[in-house]
């Protein structure tokens, strides 16, 4: 996809996120919206995947370590053709396969169950190690929140990945700067994030999470990096493109009511119209 197509797709994914969370009356829109462009790039340009064959053996793997942004993953998978976009409205409903957090047993395209922070990165490390041990070419991507970096297990996994020189692993940090209790710098600062990953023997790239040129450069650099894993620190805006959600910690885990939903969809409609005029 070219840049404009990616932007349009990301906007559709954002609509799916807002619609799913509104329908669920619960969920995590803020971090879903901040990571939507990263998801778009991964699933539409970067990863070797096939929605017709979600379990093909040589596919690239993705683990959503920040499992609470399941709405972003689901909306991406739906827009990519893994399951109907219409199903997003069943998110978190009793009997729906779209569980509140990713469930690999029941959702096509989900490579690992997650939701308890700090564990997804370890599972991704296990997958990357697995590929190395059996000389397979697939790559493994995992998305973490910046607040998630407060979990000690993230650094256990990073120490191991650096030690094992897992250059088929890409750790992406959605650096929106906010967590439930407020600004990550006020709660318990993980900064400097880049220096930390460097100290754990990662190749570190700073990127703009909402600029597809920046993401393209970052992922290309990650792929070209040999002998060490890559960490992409993607600076983002929580609640991106929904006016009243942007940079508001309160929208970490709150669903919009009907009125707010209408405003959010109007915001995204305008973004879409602006893209159509390009």
């Amino acid at each position, binding site marked *: 996809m070219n840049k404009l197509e990616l932007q349009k797709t990301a906007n559709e994914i954002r609509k799916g996120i807002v619609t799913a969370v509104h329908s669920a009356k619960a969920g995590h829109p803020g971090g879903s919206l901040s990571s939507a462009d990263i998801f778009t790039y991964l699933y539409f340009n970067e990863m070797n995947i096939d929605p017709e064959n979600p379990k093909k053996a040589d596919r690239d*793997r993705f*683990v959503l370590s920040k499992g609470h942004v399941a709405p972003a993953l689901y909306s991406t998978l739906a827009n990519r053709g893994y399951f109907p976009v219409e199903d997003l409205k069943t998110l978190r409903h009793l009997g729906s396969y779209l569980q509140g957090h990713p*469930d*690999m*047993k029941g959702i096509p395209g989900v*490579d*690992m*169950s*997650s*939701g*308890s922070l*700090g*564990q997804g990165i*370890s*599972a*991704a*490390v*296990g*997958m*990357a*190690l*697995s*590929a190395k*041990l*059996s000389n397979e070419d697939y790559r493994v991507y995992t998305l973490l929140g910046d607040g998630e970096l407060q979990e000690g*297990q993230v650094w*256990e*996994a990073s*120490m*191991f990945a650096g*030690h094992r020189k897992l250059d088929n692993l890409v750790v992406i940090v959605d650096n929106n700067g906010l967590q439930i209790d407020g600004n990550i710098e006020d709660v318990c600062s993980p900064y400097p994030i880049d220096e930390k990953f460097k100290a754990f023997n990662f190749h570190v790239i700073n990127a703009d999470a909402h600029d597809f040129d920046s993401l393209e450069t970052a992922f290309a650099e990650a792929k070209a990096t040999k002998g060490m894993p890559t960490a992409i620190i993607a600076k983002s805006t929580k609640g991106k493109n929904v006016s009243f959600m942007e940079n508001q910690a309160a929208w970490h885990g709150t669903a919009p009511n009907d009125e707010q939903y209408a405003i959010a969809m109007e915001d995204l409609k305008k973004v879409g119209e602006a893209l159509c005029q390009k």
Partner: protein
Amino acid sequence: MSEVKKIATRDSYGNALVEAGAKYDNLLVLDADLAAATKTGVFKKAYPDRHIDCGIAECNMVTIGAGLAATGKIPFVSTFAMFAAGRAFEQVRNSVGYPKLNVKIGATHAGISVGEDGASHQCNEDIALMRAIPGMVIINPADDVEARAAVFAAIEHNGPVYLRFGRLATPVINDTPDYKFELGKGVVLKEGKDITIVATGLCVAESLAAAARLEADGISAKVINIHTIKPLDEELIITAAKETGKVVTVEEHSVIGGLGSAVCDCLSENAPTPVMKIGINDVFGESGPAVELIKKYGLDAEGIYSKIKSFS
């Protein structure tokens, strides 16, 4: 009488892994800096490329195991029971149990027979923790023969398995030509009509010795070895309870949540029967030689015998 052969089931674990490694190319062994103690060191020597030392980071090790299983490997994650079931409980629950991944947890140094290391390392709660996880299979072998067979049974079962091994060398009681391990099936080792002793792990040999003493006193005790605590062989236990009218459970584990609780859960619903639970009575352990600790906490033949005498 010839000397009884004694082997610690942690040694059986290591030896079985070496044997299984030849048969299963995708079998991997993970350790958290304890390969010498968990006895997986022999696997490391035989298959250095398939042994992964994760360093002292058990939570990461268990979840790496989940990632390996999700990509078709059969990982055995090995550490002490305290850290496998205790420290990494939530990783086992959320990254192994919930997605039903094919991870085998090799937990050594279970129970008070850890000995001198003391209460911090004597895990008497692991069975309780693992029982509470939906779909988790729990095997607590009684001796070397059963422990080695359990490793193969765990591999042949597709899904999470918790294997419990001990540090102390214990008598080999299953060394018979027709021995066969069946996952989820209890084994009647001695028939009896007055009382049923349901034992697991190293308490099986002690219970057999206790039953022999009871026999001399005119009490006929049936002895059942439960190597698979979950799923429990309910049919066998219900039948035995109905036959003998009284049940005693014996385990090197807390009386809360372990074999005794599992047996009570089963019987209270299906065949209400008086049950005496012999185990660690809701206390922490302490340092000391393993054999002396087993005696002090009443899990040797003498302790089991006297408790059953008071019950029958």
